[in-house]
């Protein structure tokens, strides 16, 4: 009995203070939100577009990135001969609409706004989520799970992952929605009492991620269920997920971030 107590003393108290205090520091090589410095782009160059594994980069005139497809790999920045693409340390990525995930050279990223007053009253202080894995690689699940460990402790915000959809206020979906999970996903959603939320986590659930276009899956949740919150990444860092959830609940104020690198 004494040993566990001693161990507890030695290990100390480690829950992060965010959002009251500073967020934990990101590693220097962390690839957060990509930014494109279009002034460096050379006319006719398509190096980044050709390198992108998921067609997240497109260009009418200037390159644009779809954060919903982005795997946050280094393929584009490495391919760019002008070094026009860099990944910022910025972990804030979540939005309320699919359109908001398209960021071009000049735009702002409109981060997720809070739920409307009625829903916020319902869910603001207590949000129970049923997680559904639907055809991903399980890394998104791993970093969702992390939020329930002592270091992150999302319980302090009244957020809890629950076993039964009947006890849930919404579902949190990961994975590209494999055909083999489609029915289970739909049934789980139906089993949640209304009003209910749908939160999609990761490139898979938003767009199919690395499996986009495969005939065995549905390119994400879009078109199958109404989506309230998009959290991009492959997988999103736990801080990205937490930031998205807290914005949705109005715990972090509305803001948008400038996309331009300078």
């Amino acid at each position, binding site marked *: 009995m004494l040993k566990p107590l001693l161990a507890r003393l030695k290990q100390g108290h480690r829950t992060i203070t965010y959002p009251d205090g500073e967020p934990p520091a990101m590693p220097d*090589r962390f690839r957060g939100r990509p930014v494109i410095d279009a002034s460096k782009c050379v006319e006719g160059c398509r190096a980044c577009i050709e390198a992108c594994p998921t067609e997240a980069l497109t260009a009418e005139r200037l390159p644009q990135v779809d954060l919903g497809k982005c795997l946050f790999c280094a393929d584009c920045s490495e391919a760019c001969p002008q070094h026009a693409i860099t990944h910022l340390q910025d972990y804030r990525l979540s939005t309320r609409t699919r359109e908001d995930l398209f960021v071009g050279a000049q735009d702002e990223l409109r981060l997720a706004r809070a739920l409307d007053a009625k829903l916020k009253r319902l869910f603001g202080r207590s949000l129970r989520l049923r997680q559904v894995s639907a055809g991903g690689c399980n890394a998104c699940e791993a970093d969702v799970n992390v939020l329930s460990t002592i270091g992150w402790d999302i319980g302090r915000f009244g957020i809890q992952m629950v076993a039964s959809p009947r006890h849930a206020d919404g579902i949190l979906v990961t994975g590209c929605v494999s055909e083999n999970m489609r029915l289970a996903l739909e049934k789980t959603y139906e089993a949640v009492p209304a009003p209910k939320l749908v939160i999609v986590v990761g490139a898979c659930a938003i767009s199919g991620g690395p499996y986009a276009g495969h005939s065995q899956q549905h390119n994400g949740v879009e078109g199958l269920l109404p989506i309230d919150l998009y959290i991009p990444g492959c997988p999103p860092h736990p801080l990205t997920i937490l930031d998205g959830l807290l914005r949705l609940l109005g715990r972090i104020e509305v803001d948008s971030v400038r996309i331009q690198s300078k």
Partner: protein
Amino acid sequence: MTSSAFAKTWNGEALALIDVPRRPIDQFRVALIDAVKARCRVSSLFVRRPTESGKPELVAVLTDDSDGSVLIGIGALEGERYASLTPSCPQVHLFEREIAEQTGVAPEGHPWLKPVRFPDKADQRNARIGEMDFFKVDGDEVHEVAVGPVHAGVIEPGHFRFQCHGEEVFHLEISLGYQHRGVEDALVDGPHNRTIHVMETLAGDTTVGHAWAYSQNVEALSRVHVSAHAQVVRAIALELERLANHTGDLGALAGDVGFLPTQSFCGRIRGDLLNMTALLCGNRFGRSLVVPGGVRFMLEPERATELKKRLETAERDLQIAVNLLWESATVQGRFEQTGMVSRTACVDLGLVGPAARACGVEVDIRSTHPTGVYQFTNIPLATAHHGDVNSRAYVRWLEIQRSIVFIRERLNSLPASDSLSSRRELAADSIAASLIEGWRGEICHVAITGSNGKFSSYKVTDPSFHNWTGLSMALRNQPISDFPLCNKSFNLSYCGFDL
């Protein structure tokens, strides 16, 4: 004679397809069964088509743990059926089910060719997910418990059927395929610029292991040399992946027996270990680190120093957190003699990784078939002998300690950093087999190229493919309430299996 039916090669080497013996199926059958009886394991078995002859071919990759060789052979089929190998060689039972489901070639005499992943093809042959006959036990007071695909926790989907007599489980059948997302189909005609990312996400918690297995195949087929620095960084990343997952597993096992201190500590330490991988490459799972030709991020001396510092802290914290498990009588009481798998069952079924080593079976690619820096520095193989939850937990703890020592030594003698080797075309009409000891066990990738130097087949075998049956065996005659504990002691991948 095995020597005539198989080409003898080594881990991560490429062969021209014409140098692989092609035997009529009957001869091939006998040779394979003899080889497995003598000393080999089946690391991969699949049907290749279309072939030069137009007829389907059975491709086998065997590993010989006694001399570190890899044996590759081809069995030429005459038609769409052959006599099943499973009755004489049980460890191929799932490979043959997979062959039947994916290609329609029927291994006749297989005990039960059930669906494996329910691939969604227009193909009438394939059943819809969940629609099949399950094993059934009849009798008074026998009842069935069905669980999943959606489980209680934040975990992947799968379906479990327990045949129970009261609390006691007579048989557990595990039916998967829910995460099937068409990965192998997508690899054909590659490498494309998405291929490495598909490899990194075969099983997200084994990003480094699978990316390495793939890269090793590409390097073999294109005869690209990997720098000493890159080899060391790969090994450090692979061991960090093992550390993080083993630590998470020990925490989860503690949680399943209600021993919260270790659960809480390990949950956090696992995060610290993932953050060490992020220090290497920016991503907690090692994404974008291992690529064909080497690694994308070099490990500078200052970074190595920081890593060493963090490793020391993690080691100290782990000693405190994990030793509580072995010192607590209540934990030991729950771990010991729970979910036993016999050594014989383990060998017959061809289990791999910590699950096999916990039965005293000495399989570990790092020792038997080493590549990269493992060729020069040996990590002592860790075994235990009871095949129970306790043994599976203890093997993980031994491996954690040995991986820490290994990483520290590598950091102390880091070769000078070097750039990525440039890409080259893959050799045409060739085959390469690559084995990596991931944290769950042996990962096997087999690449075959066509005349255009593109993949005509790419076969992935995650360790979970071998081990799910082990979990079923562990549940025999156990109380059903021990399922979570047994399950966690294997901690297998659904997505790595479902592909």
